[in-house]
């Protein structure tokens, strides 16, 4: 059974204070690891897909990395508008990417 564990559950940062969110996973034959951002009252919004260990993707202040057991979402010099819940999901084996297993998310609060 695929499993995803995200830590920490909540993270409070000062504006400009860089940090990382962790996503540990177990999956039989990783097909893709996904990061989503979710704002209150809205559906998750896709950020990145990572396919294999060593891969990295960047978007503005966010950088996602992947190893064989975990993924990190690095946030460099965050701004208050980066405050959101960040969700990690994996798909593996023969399953379609939509049948992803999601973690519980990390709620990030960035204070000005």
């Amino acid at each position: 059974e695929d499993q995803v564990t995200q830590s920490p559950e909540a993270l409070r940062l000062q504006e400009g204070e860089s940090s990382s969110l962790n996503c540990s996973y177990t999956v039989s034959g990783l097909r893709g690891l996904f990061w989503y951002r979710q704002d209150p009252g809205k559906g998750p919004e896709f950020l990145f897909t990572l396919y294999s260990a060593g891969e990295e993707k960047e978007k503005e202040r966010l950088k996602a990395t992947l190893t064989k057991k975990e993924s990190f979402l690095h946030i460099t010099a965050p701004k208050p508008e980066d405050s959101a819940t960040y969700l990690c999901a994996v798909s593996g084996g023969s399953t379609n990417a939509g049948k992803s297993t999601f973690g519980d998310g990390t709620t990030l609060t960035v204070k000005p």
Partner: protein
Amino acid sequence: DVKVTQSSRYLVKRTGEKVFLECVQDMDHENMFWYRQDPGLGLRLIYFSYDVKMKEKGDIPEGYSVSREKKERFSLILESASTNQTSMYLCASSSGQDNSPLHFGNGTRLTVT
């Protein structure tokens, strides 16, 4: 941009009522999904569909059914609503390609009293 539209943002229904949640996507995606999201439980897959008139059970299908008569529309049906079905319901779609990410709607917050 892909747009996934859920017909209602908020719904309040009574126990025992039959409830329909509607979802429409405008990107000709083959795959559509219904998830529910609850605090402490994350997102859980209820049902999904890879093609018109096809449906498959997800992890928590009990008490739900679905309908996909047209490619762009995927409906979730609560046959007889119960209070434990109070939740945020999220519809999503993805293209037929492997590893295509999900595109979510903004959710329907359903309260069953």
